């Protein structure tokens, strides 16, 4: 949904503003005021500058004037409101008509993006530009998203852009290292985990999920042991078996890590959740699992007489995870059908 964050009102121009009516090169243009009607709702108290720029923008937009001065005008307008998709669209038409310098355009949009990194339009413009620039642009684009992710490692637009560049223009060689680096910095960064999954499954250099699964499971288990109270690697671990339920059930490392963590942190809901899922998917519980689960849930007053491991785990989760009591009871009620 639209970003609610109002970009900071950064300094738009260093030079004093000259109204368009006083600029000789614009003397032939008649400004077009906004048609808000006599009693508009949500009227905005535009500054004189904003109104002036927009009145002239409307004039060139209506006239479809694809000229160098129109390009300059869109620059001024976008600096004041980078969220105006009409101006961006028109700017692209002007650039294409004039065959303008695309490197210069890149400098412009990158500078604007720095102060407005949660803006859909800017990132869309960057894609359009990168597509025109072609594969040579990939390194620059990766450097740019890296910079943006340094400031906000979870910026959704930056990650989407990075994935798009990888798929369209390449640059896969160092991407797994990049994920490693970010996860080393913050193992809780779920966006970096998601990127890791993307690289593992989609990189043309790594052989895909089936080739990578084994080493990824080890990596993920190691991350879990670093801090078991981190949902991201637990979800990632299960994701590594997506689409291949058999591999999920037969990998002994899955129940093993669950039990290992639960022996130390018996309230780790992520470990319980994974154990529950693997049992639901058809893992036949070994004696060890059975005894461990019974032992860990024994202290509970209710449910300890329950011989079904799955419902027993759900009951335990209902108690230790009260905010999700309704969810766990739903899981319990579905045991016979599909948990």
């Amino acid at each position, binding site marked *: 949904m639209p970003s609610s964050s109002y970009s900071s009102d950064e300094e738009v121009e260093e030079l004093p503003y000259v109204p368009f009516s006083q600029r000789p090169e614009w003397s032939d243009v008649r400004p077009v005021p906004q048609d808000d009607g006599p009693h508009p709702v949500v009227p905005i108290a535009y500054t004189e500058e904003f109104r002036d720029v927009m009145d002239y923008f409307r004039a060139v937009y209506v006239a479809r004037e694809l000229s160098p001065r129109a390009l300059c005008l869109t620059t001024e307008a976008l600096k004041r409101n980078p969220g105006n998709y009409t101006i961006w669209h028109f700017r*692209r038409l002007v650039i294409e008509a004039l065959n303008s310098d695309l490197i210069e355009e890149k400098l412009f949009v990158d500078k604007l993006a720095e102060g407005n990194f949660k803006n859909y339009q800017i990132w*869309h413009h960057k894609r359009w530009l990168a597509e025109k620039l072609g594969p040579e642009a990939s390194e620059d684009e990766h450097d740019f998203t890296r910079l943006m992710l340094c400031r906000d490692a979870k910026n959704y637009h930056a990650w989407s852009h990075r994935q798009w560049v990888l798929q369209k223009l390449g640059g896969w060689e160092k991407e797994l290292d990049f994920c490693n680096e970010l996860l080393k910095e913050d193992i809780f960064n779920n966006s970096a985990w998601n990127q890791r999954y993307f690289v593992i499954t989609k990189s043309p250099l790594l052989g895909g999920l089936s080739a990578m699964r084994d080493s990824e499971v080890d990596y993920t288990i190691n991350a879990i042991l670093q801090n078991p109270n981190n949902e991201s690697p637990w979800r990632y671990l299960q994701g590594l078996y997506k689409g291949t339920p058999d591999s999920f059930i037969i990998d002994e490392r899955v129940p093993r890590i669950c039990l290992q963590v639960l022996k130390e942190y018996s309230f780790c809901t992520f470990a319980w959740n994974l154990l529950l899922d693997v049992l639901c998917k058809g893992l036949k519980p070994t004696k060890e699992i059975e005894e461990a689960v019974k032992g860990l849930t024994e202290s509970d007053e209710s449910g300890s007489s329950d011989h079904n491991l799955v419902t027993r785990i759900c009951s335990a989760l209902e108690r230790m995870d009260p905010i999700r009591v309704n969810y766990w*009871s739903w899981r319990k009620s579905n045991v016979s059908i599909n948990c």
Partner: protein
Amino acid sequence: MKSSQPPFPSSHLDSTSDTDSDDHEHGPRLTVTQEDQLKVESQVAEIYRCLVGIPLHRQSVALELWRDKHIEYLTKGLNQLGHTFQVLDANRPWLCYWILHSFAVLGEEVDSELESRVVDFLSRCQDKEGGYAGGPGQMPHLATTYAAVNTLVNLGTQKALSSINREGIYKFLLEMKDSSGAFRMHHAGEVDARSCYCAISVASLLKIIDDDLVRGIGDYIASCQTYEGGIGGEPHSEAHGGYTFCGLASMILIDEVEKLDMASLIGWVASRQGIELGFQGRANKLVDGCYSFWQGAALVLAQKLLPLAEKVSEEQSSIHAIRDYSDIGIEFMRRGNQTGLLFHHLALQQYIILCSQILEGGFRDKPGKFRDYYHTCYCLSGLSLCQYSMRDGDLKPSPSDILGPYSNLLEPVHPLYNVVLDKFFLANEFFSKNSF
């Protein structure tokens, strides 16, 4: 009064924070995620701790919805916005929707003068070829078309509904249809799960939805579901609350829910309600009041779908396949809940009222942030969902499902479109009678 008792005293929060910091003493240092999270947890805990100090009979007052203050804040924005809103100059139908939907959820009447002003202004945003733009003279855009149509449906009058050029919108939607099956936001604009939802919601509400619009969307949305269970903006993007709502609601409206892995989707959304009692948008991100709607609505929708989530049988999906798309919205509301709740509706109300509500009127993302119209709209929508989430049929919600005084009760919303329910019925009738 039982209902006014907060479900989670602050001690619950405190103990977890303590355990966390104990754990971390062994680790090298806290990461950015952990530091940010602990900061928010302590701010929220401080607020809840204040409530615990208040005698039980007065807690009801502390949990009150300050309707008059909200109306005052909303009215102010409707009549004049400061120059800082220039950055939202291409989102003016959204401003209309955020404010007027908040009015509608609060049960505030709109007089005919205001109604005329809204209809007149939105007509100036309506492109002569079809679709609504972000402001007069701009290009039509799918998101602002969604906002404008929802605003007019919330007004619900003949004048408002007949001001919509349905034929034009249908043509606009067809033009925005991409070869992938998904929709572009505007001419040569971006494609994502959000644009699909805006297109499908509008087409369904206006009863102009057909196979040409629907084709390909189901596969696109399904390809946006991630290994985590939630839905991302585009294929391979991270699971996200806003897009999860958009994706699920779209799938219901086109009757292709069976293409989603509902069990993992529900598991992911349910896990997003956190110790602060509100929802976060993504795993390991901070709580935010607006996800009370996006995540809350996804679970409210799932509650009505459960037989599908429990077992996807071939025969069941084929029964659904014969339905007319344009009646899905109304049939969905006739369907009762298939199960109990999937989230903690009282806890969520506590977060919205105590942490997002602002004394001067309006709602915010979280303590420490400023109020805005977007969060006001989605916090109120989420609050309404909570209040009606246990409702059976047309009965009034039970006082035990309303946190705070019963006068907090809001108008119910239709969880697929997020318009108020009684106006949805009016619009449904209006557009059934008037073919385009």
